[in-house]
């Protein structure tokens, strides 16, 4: 999938990364329809909060449920 990644201070690259997969039984995978940049993301952008190359940023997303783990009861595929 495509994602916004940090490569180093002030180096953002949109690139292909590995698709996320269900890891726990109560995980879900969401197909993101909209997402925002937060001021606190700039701490990562500026290098104040160290990360590693290809790390995917972002904590303001929304989307549609694509996949659910076997223990998920709250949502199902296609739930917004």
């Amino acid at each position, binding site marked *: *999938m495509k994602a916004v990644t940090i490569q180093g201070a002030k180096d953002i690259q949109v690139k292909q990364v590995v698709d996320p997969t269900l890891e726990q039984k109560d*995980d879900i995978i*969401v197909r*993101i*329809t909209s*997402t*925002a940049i937060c001021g606190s993301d700039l701490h990562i952008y500026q290098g104040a909060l160290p990360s590693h190359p290809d790390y995917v940023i972002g904590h303001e997303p929304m989307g549609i449920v694509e996949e659910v783990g076997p223990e998920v009861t709250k949502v199902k595929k296609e739930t*917004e």
Partner: protein
Amino acid sequence: MESQCDNSNPNKEIDSGGYFGFTERYGNYPGGQAEFMRVPYGNFMPFVIPESCELEDEALLFMSDVLPTAYWSVENSGMKPGDTVTVLGCGPVGLMAQKFAWMKGAKRVIAIDNLPYRLNHAKKMNNVEIYNFDEYDDTGAYIKEITEGGADVVIDCVGMDGKKSAIEAIEQKLKLQGGTLSAIQIALKAVRKFGTIQLTGVYGSMYNMFPLGNIFERNVTLKMGQAPVIHYMPMLFDKITKGEFDPTEIITHKVPMDMASDAYKVFNDHADDVIKVILKP
């Protein structure tokens, strides 16, 4: 409360909850600026938008952080109807905190920043009094004067990224200082005796010359932290669908996710009158 969840952050050195897209320190979860995202705790984390809702993404997107953070800031500050509230910062969270202060019955809402375009946005969006801190030698003292003793509540929506003094800039480079205390220095004078300063803008690491004595001697309460955002989503959804406020008022840029590199630069540089950027995967 999710922001202080004991289980979601596998980094045992940090006693704080995990956050999406916020590096190894906060759990190393890949973030949501992507085509897909893994969401753990699928029976707790998602807020489900009812099928009947016909609002666009833009009206709902900020339930993910900005709106709960701003709303919680006003609540956590203990602000009461009739209070005078000063909000430091006219970024997305500051703008929404100003709006929520009015909605909670503030008598007077004062907004401070040093970017004229953001101050003008605050005036237009929230009908607040605006003051540019670059135009005053001592902005905190000025606010104290015009509020006759200080605001009941000061909400700092700036944090460590405010305007640094020359010494702070050097100290930060040497890793002796987490960031600037300039917002707190304004807040501690702008607040009244027995008032409350709510820190919402992020403060990381440690701070030299923290004016603890000045806060102590005026019986000021200092509150702070990360908002427990998930708890606020249902109530905020209800207010949005009833039309009590319009979250899209803070959006200035909506671009394809492919343009993220440029979008980060614009946002970081406060270029093009930016306030809030939405990316479309």
